[in-house]
């Protein structure tokens, strides 16, 4: 298990050092600094073995978090723990910076004592932790006996991510479907690879211990229901359903229930959390199509024309559109003509950057560029890197639709109808490239 946990600043000075196991000594702190932080070369692996001690590290801005061990630990767990540690710290004092770490070092030690025991990660849900570890000293001494046992049962209980007795005057739910759509397209418009990785992020402000059920147009669920309701219905709904390649859930979701019934039921944590992640590869709506046309005119001139077409309902608006057309290294000058937005040649980035604030669906726009080249004797041909694109659209390119989100709280007197629910879809570009 984890033998020691260290936090360093960018200079390699130790800010936090907590040793859990006897086999990790003070020299381990220095070994990591010398061999990794001060190493001349770029880090080639997040796991480093120095003198039979293994170090796992992650970096947050310029703060290094390192876990050391001499045993054959579960490496995936150590990294998950380090990320969790970052989440917890962020939840307590915001950005992980040298100043914040120094300002909160007593708190961090306290947290480390609680969430890592003898190197074994313990309950690290901030919701639960915040009930008895606070920045203003320890609350628990003021707790009544009842409250104390409530805390402990929550920390160790089945629902470690939520404390009891939460009350809101207004029960509200915010649900964001955030997708990033990735594309690699050939110059001829053939899709080489495309996938959507999506997240369902929730903010729940609900009283009590509500039981939630989340439904979406998952093909498997719809097909199953379709079987019961007749074939016609199945065919109809089949169109709107999407095939999910894989999904993972926050630990509040009952996985065995998902496995057997494919229903997503859970008692949500309070506040913001990521309910699920998913990936789809079939029937993706590609919001934009990029049509490149590159013509080499002699050895010193290049003509580039790029057409972008928006491919979604005309009532919707895409935002923050940016097209990046790479230019050769020996570019000496660029003349640009674009119908919409602003375009600029950025010599330092070797690219033409074309920005459009908004663009409605089913529209088309184009840019033409004349690129003057310096004659070179470099035999190496220009590799023609792909044209990349950034954008944001108000729908889910995977086609995912939230069908319902039901809330049941049997003990308190509010029903599903009383909860105010907000649903939002945002599709963003991931790596969206077209070769030219």
């Amino acid at each position, binding site marked *: 298990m984890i033998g020691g946990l260290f936090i360093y600043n960018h200079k390699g000075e130790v800010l936090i050092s907590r040793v859990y196991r006897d086999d990790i000594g003070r020299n381990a702190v220095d070994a990591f600094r010398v061999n990794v932080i001060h190493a001349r070369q770029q880090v080639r692996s*997040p796991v480093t*073995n120095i003198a*039979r001690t293994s170090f796992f590290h992650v970096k947050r801005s310029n703060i290094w978090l390192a876990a050391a061990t001499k045993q054959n630990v579960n490496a995936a*767990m150590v990294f998950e723990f380090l990320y969790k540690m970052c989440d917890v710290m962020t939840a307590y004092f915001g950005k992980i910076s040298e100043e914040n770490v120094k300002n909160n070092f007593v708190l961090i030690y306290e947290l480390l004592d609680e969430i890592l025991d003898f190197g*074994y990660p313990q309950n690290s849900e901030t919701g639960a932790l915040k009930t008895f570890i606070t920045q203003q000293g320890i609350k628990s*001494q003021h707790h009544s006996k009842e409250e104390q046992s409530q805390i402990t049962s929550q920390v160790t*209980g*089945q629902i470690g991510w939520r404390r009891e007795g939460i009350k809101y005057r207004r029960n509200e739910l915010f649900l964001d479907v955030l997708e990033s759509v990735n594309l690699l397209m050939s110059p001829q418009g053939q899709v080489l690879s495309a996938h959507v990785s999506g997240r369902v992020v929730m903010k729940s402000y609900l009283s009590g211990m509500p039981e939630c059920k989340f439904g979406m147009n998952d093909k498997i669920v719809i097909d199953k229901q379709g079987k019961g309701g007749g074939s016609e219905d199945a065919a109809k709904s089949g169109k709107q359903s999407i095939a999910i390649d894989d999904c993972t859930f926050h630990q509040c979701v009952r*996985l065995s229930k998902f496995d057997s019934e494919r229903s997503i039921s859970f008692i949500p944590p309070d506040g913001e959390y990521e309910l699920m992640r998913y990936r789809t590869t079939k029937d993706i709506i590609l919001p934009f199509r990029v049509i490149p046309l590159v013509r080499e005119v002699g050895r010193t001139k290049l003509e580039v024309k790029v057409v972008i077409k928006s491919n979604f309902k005309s009532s919707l608006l895409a935002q923050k559109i940016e097209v990046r057309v790479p230019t050769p290294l020996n570019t000496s000058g660029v003349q640009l003509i674009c119908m919409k937005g602003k375009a600029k040649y950025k010599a330092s980035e070797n690219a033409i950057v074309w920005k459009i604030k908004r663009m409605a669906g089913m529209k088309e726009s184009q840019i033409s560029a004349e690129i003057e080249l310096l004659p070179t004797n470099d*035999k190496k041909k220009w590799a023609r890197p792909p044209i990349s694109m950034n954008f944001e659209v108000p729908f889910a390119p995977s086609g995912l639709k939230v069908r319902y989100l039901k809330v049941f709280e049997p003990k308190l007197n509010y029903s599903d109808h009383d909860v105010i629910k907000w649903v939002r879809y945002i599709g963003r570009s991931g790596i969206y490239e077209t070769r030219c």
Partner: protein
Amino acid sequence: MTDSKYFTTTKKGEIFELKAELNSDKKEKKKEAVKKVIASMTVGKDVSALFPDVVNCMQTDNLELKKLVYLYLMNYAKSQPDMAIMAVNTFVKDCEDPNPLIRALAVRTMGCIRVDKITEYLCEPLRKCLKDEDPYVRKTAAVCVAKLHDINAQLVEDQGFLDTLKDLISDSNPMVVANAVAALSEIAESHPNSNLLDLNPQTINKLLTALNECTEWGQIFILDCLANYTPRDDRESQSICERVTPRLSHANSAVVLSAVKVLMKFMEMLPKDLDYYGTLLKKLAPPLVTLLSAEPELQYVALRNINLIVQRRPEILKHEMKVFFVKYNDPIYVKLEKLDIMIRLASQANIAQVLAELKEYATEVDVDFVRKAVRAIGRCAIKVEQSAERCVSTLLDLIQTKVNYVVQEAIVVIKDIFRKYPNKYESVIATLCENLDSLDEPEARAAMIWIVGEYAERIDNADELLESFLEGFHDESTQVQLQLLTAIVKLFLKKPTETQELVQQVLSLATQDSDNPDLRDRGYIYWRLLSTDPVAAKEVVLAEKPLISEETDLIEPTLLEELICHIGTLASVYHKPPSAFVEGSRGVQHKRLPGSAGSGESVESPDTGSAAGVSDAPPAVIPSQGDLLGDLLNLDLAPPATTTGPPPPTSSGMQMGAMDLLGGGLDSLMGDESEPLGGDLGGSPAMGAGFGAPPAAMPASFNAPVSGGLDDLFDLGGGVGMPSGAYSPPKSIWLPAMKAKGLEISGTFARRAGVVQMEMTLTNKAMSVMTDFAIQFNRNSFGLAPAGPLQVLTPVSPNQSIEVALPLNTVGPVMKMEPLNNLQVAVKNNIDVFYFSCQYPISMLFVEDGKMERQVFLATWKDIPNDNESQFQIKDCHLSSDAASSKLQGSNIFTIAKRTVDGQDMLYQSTKLTNGIWVLAELRVQAGNPNYTVSLKCRAPEVAQCVFQSYEAVLKN
């Protein structure tokens, strides 16, 4: 209020000030002081001097202060064991506190104070806490047992804590169960044989129930523990798998990987024809792919594991090639791992895409990555034959970029492609040769040299190219030197006429001027091969190469099995068994995949390793430069004769070989039409090791050849001999039919009527008639040569044998052979020319007038320095001295005088060789003792060994 100020106090007298503050009456001040102490401790300052003062602050109802003091205690208790006892009372008291958080804090901290004296005091509080009503305390106490075990294992056993811990597996609280499992697993690891974690279907069931309810970390502990269980049968295995699969959808990658581990392991037990088996395989792919969207560090861990999984069960991810395509922003360690997996997954179906990607990668910035990408293209060519052509043209494109490291890497992989597909892509050699000058890395240079050597016959200026490398021979790395040596020998074997000088140059560079034993060894091996048996040399050096394996860098199957059992852990990241990086008893246990159900059909392929753990040799990988040497060494390269007694200095033998290379070796290569090359061509250097030189000087003479001995050799020349009755050894097979297209030659030598004869039986074991026999000798130590043509008058029909006697003379060209009596013979017939070597008994060179005058004998005996005397024992000889004397006389060893001293007969004998060398002998025969002693004195002591052999042979026959 900020705490960062505590980090800034670095003034002198700080400790003193802190001491005062710690003893202050004001609570706030105390707390501030403890914070300062902790801050100092963090940055590595020694604040142990404050121990008593800090411990004094422990008795407080302020929990924050208490925690800080505990933190201090954990750090310094070990250095102040006596003082640490002061803290015990507080711990004991705190364990009784009404607040469960304080009870847990006390029990948690207690275990971290690693002081033997204290541990005893902790047992009672710990026992209570293990049975505490509050689960929070119990889960903390469970871990504390593991802590205590780490300090004092015996104590934990004696106190019965292990049983209590086992009971906790049935606790109602899932977190208690998880921690108990973690603690037990850890303790069990240091007791490999104990049955501590008594996993039976009941406990497994409890664990699986807790799995659904506990925290993500608890799930990992439980899954890791489950992975150690071996189900009784495939049904149990399946039911566990069914209950574990939902974990594959967990957001925590470690949970997913641990679940994958359990499934990969238990799958081994499922029959392959089971529907569920297929379902399970399908279920494994998506979560593995999803791991690749995690943070980069986790991706790295996942990729290292996927690398193992793909090797064990390639079918899981065979359709998922695209997800391993490298993204521009991936960190380099992710990129490199992805590339590895891409190569493993490459197949005919996806090769076009893969190649397109690899080509893109080859233009990236990171040198390591680019190199690996280029190498990957080569691997694809070797793995997927259909793609080879495209790969080669891609590589050529890359070579055209002239980016130095790309070119070099490309040449290295093209070498492997040539090996895999000989005679297919040689058209590109010209392009490769253009880049000769830009190669500065040993591997690339070696590869290029290999290519030139291998295709020497197609490269017009191969000799020039190789010669250009030879100029800086000694500055090259060993790899290049070895390759250059081999390449030039290849070239020589292919174009012998033009490259003699070159090969001579490289052989002498390798054997004489190099300090590298490998290089010298290889040099000698070639040298000897070329000198003794050029045909064999051809067979060895230009042998068909073994096929190179498609898959590379495969992990050895038993190790792979073990690593599969360690999925998710560091072992799977390092691809090394835990014992390789974990100290002590932990991790020394080697884990195994369970045996399969029924007929063992779950084992993928025979070489994937059975449960029995037969350690197969790892499959051949793309060979490095060293393998040719390996091939050579596998051959039996023992010298043709086994000499007894003091072995002749081998180095001199090599020297002789060098000589021979230019004579006989070359002759034979050119077939029988060539005349032996003039003696002076090779004469001078090799003769340096002539007979006159004393044996001790031999190795030296090899390093610095001198021609001094030459004269002696010829001075000794001349001489003829007579009578018959000489000893002749029985015939032995010199040339087996297998080596000579059906011609078998057996033979012996005899001296009949003063004439040396070579008596041979030629047997035709082939299907066709043999005619046109001819014979030729290589130069040899005594100038033996056929006195006339080989008289085979009639054609030899199949299965017929004929006897031939070939009279020999001793006026042929002379060259010292090793062993001295070695004779290399070429026999020609209508089919081919065959070469063999044989050894003649030196006794047939003993001439008939070898009887010395007594006076001369005495004088000569005195004259020859004692250094030249050598003594031998002849064992188990039951002849009397007279019988021996007469028997020896039959072989021209003459007794000059006989003396009897103390019942010991001393025979003084002389003999003369055809080249005029006199050998004087003293033979001592003691009645009743079957062991004779022979002392030989001769001006050319090299012959002593051979003469002694003749003595022995004559006396015993």
